[in-house]
Each structure stands twice: as structure tokens, then as C-alpha cells.
């Protein structure tokens, strides 16, 4: 494989995030999972509390549910979901800490608490793996930035090419907008145009 031209920095601001569909697909899945779990916590706190062996903690589960929904929406809406996934990891830790209370010997549903902790531990592992993968993609992207600022494609600097085609080109009649709609205004054009 042959790589053509690459140059130095052009001073443009660059995104720290690489579009990587597979990694982002997993992150998106975690986002939807978060929303689903959050809705369950908010809408069925008593059922959830019984299942995880924490009766009486319905309000805590409601709050956790709201947190899960917020995190899920954040993951789905952010271009870079990595911080939100780390947020999920922190939430997992909080969940585990809360579930510890259910491990006391007199809890009649201690086994439910243990099952819940096992499930949280497993999803924590997925969260950590996903966040790590997102970080690796971002770092790879930052390392690989290739500057194409020497690829104007014109024989002269771009600002000198403004309108260069007009001396030998007229917009065909079927591509022209109605005369009454043009031109728009008589705005001032700085010398050399607005090309950067």
C-alpha cells in the first residue's frame, strides 16, 4: 500500500475522537441497557428491591434508576461516549457498595443480593472493557492524524482561485434560480475574499 503526501501541522483544531463503528456500537448497547435498567428502577422499585434483597430501599433504587437513565442518554448523545462509560463504571461501584448491605446474615433474600452483585460485577467488566477500547481508539486516532493542508488541488493558493471558472463557464438555464431571487444582497467583500 502506498501512502501519498503527508505534511506537517496546519494549526487546525482537531477532534480527539475517532469514528469507530464497532466500538461505538458496544457503547451504544450499554447506553440502551442503562436506559432500560434505569426505567425498571424508576417504574418498578419495589419489585427490583425484592429481587436484589434490599426491601425498604425503593427510594435509593429510584435515584439509581434516574442516574442510569441520565448516563444512558449521555452515552447515546455524546460523540465521545468514553467519559459516560467511565461514569457507568463509577455507578457500578456505587451499586456494589449499596448491595453489600444486603449480605448481612439475617437477610432472608441474601442469595438474591449475591446474584445481583455477580451480575453487576459482570457488567462492570464489560463497562471497563468498553471504556478501555474507546480510549485506545481515541489514542490511536490522535497518533495517526495526517495533515493534508498541502493538498489544495489548485495551481495557485485557494483565495486566488475564487471565481476562476467564471470566465469560461455560465450556469446552464435549467440550473439557474429565478432571476427575482438573485443576487441576495450587496454585502461588502473584503479584499481577497473570505478564504482563510
Amino acid at each position, binding site marked *: 500500500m502506498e501512502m501519498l503526501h503527508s505534511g506537517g501541522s496546519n494549526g487546525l483544531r482537531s*477532534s480527539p475522537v475517532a469514528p469507530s463503528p464497532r466500538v461505538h456500537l458496544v457503547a451504544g448497547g450499554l447506553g440502551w441497557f442503562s436506559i432500560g435498567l434505569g426505567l425498571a428502577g424508576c417504574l418498578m422499585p419495589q419489585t427490583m428491591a425484592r429481587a436484589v434483597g434490599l426491601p425498604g430501599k425503593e427510594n435509593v433504587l429510584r435515584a439509581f434508576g434516574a442516574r442510569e437513565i441520565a448516563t444512558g442518554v449521555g452515552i447515546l448523545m455524546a460523540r465521545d461516549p468514553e467519559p459516560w462509560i467511565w461514569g457507568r463504571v463509577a455507578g457500578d461501584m456505587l451499586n456494589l457498595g449499596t448491595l453489600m448491605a444486603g449480605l448481612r446474615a439475617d437477610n432472608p433474600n441474601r442469595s438474591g443480593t449475591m446474584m445481583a452483585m455477580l451480575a453487576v460485577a459482570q457488567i462492570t467488566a464489560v463497562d471497563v472493557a468498553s471504556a478501555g477500547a474507546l480510549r485506545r481508539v481515541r489514542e490511536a486516532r490522535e497518533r495517526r492524524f495526517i495533515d493534508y493542508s498541502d*493538498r489544495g488541488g489548485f495551481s495557485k493558493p485557494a483565495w486566488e482561485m475564487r471565481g476562476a471558472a467564471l470566465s469560461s463557464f455560465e450556469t*446552464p438555464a435549467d440550473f439557474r434560480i429565478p432571476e427575482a431571487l438573485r443576487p441576495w444582497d450587496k454585502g461588502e467583500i473584503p479584499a481577497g475574499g473570505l478564504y482563510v
Partner: protein
Amino acid sequence: MRALCWHGKKDIRCDNVPDPQIEDGRDAIVKVTSCAICGSDLHLFDGFMPGMEHGDIMGHEFMGEVVEVGASNSKLKVGDRVVVPFTIVCGDCEQCRRGHFSVCERSNRNKEIADKAFGHATAGLFGFSHITGGYPGGQAEYVRVPYADVGPVKIPDGLTDEQVLFLGDIFPTGWQAAVQCDIQPEDTVAIWGAGPVGQFAVRSAVLLGARQVICIDNVPERLSMAHAGGATTINFDEESVLDRLKELTRGKGPEKCIDAVGMEAHVTRSIDSVYDRAKQALMLESDRAHVLREMMYVCRPAGVLSVPGVYGGLVDKLPMGAFMNKGLTMRTGQTHVNRWTDDLLKRIQEGQIDPSFVITHTVSLEEGPEMYKTFRDKLDGCIKVVIKP
């Protein structure tokens, strides 16, 4: 011969297939010397275009040497070096005579399928599903070119493949996108997408005299190339597109907007793009219309929207209120390639523009399947892949 063949979603393979044969007197067989992967090939790769079948040969950007000519083809002769436009045109029908080549009424041999899909058939295209005729594409060692006495553009000596290959699609596509805007000297032209078509749209808008050209994307290397071509850039990961466009246009909005993205717009921070992604995943819509929505919202009233980006099916939640009340005009369509090729070839010959600036990777046919993934994922600084069969 060897060719890149479609075998399903995300499954392109380099296969051995039968050599093409002359089927009609107007045909020619072209030995491909250079071809390219187009952004719209990715819609097939990602499974968003219906009408693909196992074994279909990919590719609609190619050029090469004529090695065989049909009996009634008096335009070409063996040895001619040609660029072949991606639209197959008869040159005789009512639409072709009007210069509306991409809606040629004769070249789509699967007219019945296209009539059902789009209401009316459009032109046949190379390597672009059976809705557009099911013609074998150009990512191969040889291609049969139907109506070869009309479409192929003869290339004079002294120009490299890399300089002229893109006359078959992306250069005229970017050019037509800008021409559709009927650019005035006071215009700001905003272009969504800094992929290959977006790059040519930027340069075309500059050549056609736009006061200001703005290009919107989130891939730093693509933005650096658009910047080199004369565009002010907006990285939508880092700033609000709407706010920045207002700022750059004194609050009035760009007069002309070009969608060089199409049906696979990225999921951004906006709620509508998340909605699109979810709905597409549930197969409740086929195309993600984030760019169309943003253009309709931000375009200056009475402005023009030009859409070279490919859409294949249905979109949802278009702000028709904004579109109608602002009196916007939308110009769309596949490119009428032959309408622009002579003029653009002349500009290349005169040195006004060298389209090879966009090439970032040159590979063999065998490396093609891997390059589809590299191009799709925008890895390794990939903007345009040229394949040498």
C-alpha cells in the same frame, strides 16, 4: 478475471469471475487501469441499498483502455484510453437529449424494479444494485460498457490516470452540486461532509466564485484538506454547527447548502441523530436525515439546498415547516456526468485543478476488501482509495 464482488453486508471479496463479452453492437470492453472506491459504494457495503445479489461486481469509478469494440460503435477504437462515467446513458432518449443523463429512460434494464422503488426508472449505473440495472461494476480487470458510443470520455495524451479518473464521478458530482446552487458573488456556501465529493464541492464552489465556503465534518485530516481547498471548517465534535454558521454569516445563514453526506449521517450529539440511529436499527426507516434537517433549519430563507449525497429510501421527521415557510429550493439527483466532463477535462488540462490531490491510498485489487473497511472507518487518514487491477 479478478473482480471485487459483493457477498452480503460488510462482505466484499476478490473473486475470479468470467470475462465480460460484447453483448450489443454499441458495447465496448475496457481493460481497467485504475478504479476507485466511492463513498456511495459504502452504502452497498453497509447493506443500506436494496437490490444487491451475491456475486455482483462492485465499482462505478473506473477508467482504462478499450480492448474490444462492438460492430456498430464508431466512436471508439481498440487502444483508446477512456474514463467511463458511472451513469450509463443512451444519448437518444428525451431525457438524454435534455442533458438529464442520470435519468436516461433506456439504460436501466431493470425498469420494472426501479419503477416500483422510485416511481420511475432512472439511468443504469455500473455496480450499483439491480435497481439501477444490475450492471457489473468497474472494480475488476475488465468491464463491459453498454452504450459505449455515448458515455466514455476519451483522454488525451499527457494526463495521468490519477488526474482524470475522477471525471467519471466525484469531480462532476462535486461540480454539479455547486452548479445547482447557482452561486452568486455574495453567497456563502455551506457544505456538509468533507469526504471526496465534499472536497470537490468545496473547490467547485471556490472556482464558481462563492464569497465564502464552509465545510462541516469531524475528521481532522478531511477538514485539513477542505481547508487547503479554500474552506473555513467546522468540526461538529467541537462546536455547534448552527451557532458557528450563524456567526460566519452575520446571523443570516448560508444562502446555499450542499449535502455531501447522504443517508449515513453520523450520530452526533443531537437528539434527532440518536433517534434516527434507533429507528434505523429497528428497520423503521432506511436513511438518516440529520444533514437534511440541519440544512433546512439553518439555510437562509429563499436559499438553495443541493443534495449530491445519496439517499436510497425513506426518511423521517423532515422539518417541512421550515422548508416550506422559508421558501427553500432543493436540487437533487445523480450526476449528469457527460454534461460536465468536457469542461472539467479542459480545466485539468489547463492546470486549473489537479484532482489527484484527493488520493490518499493506492492499492491492488486483492487489497480492495480490506480498504473498504479502512475507508468506511476513516482510518489511516483515508479519504480516497485508488485500486490498480
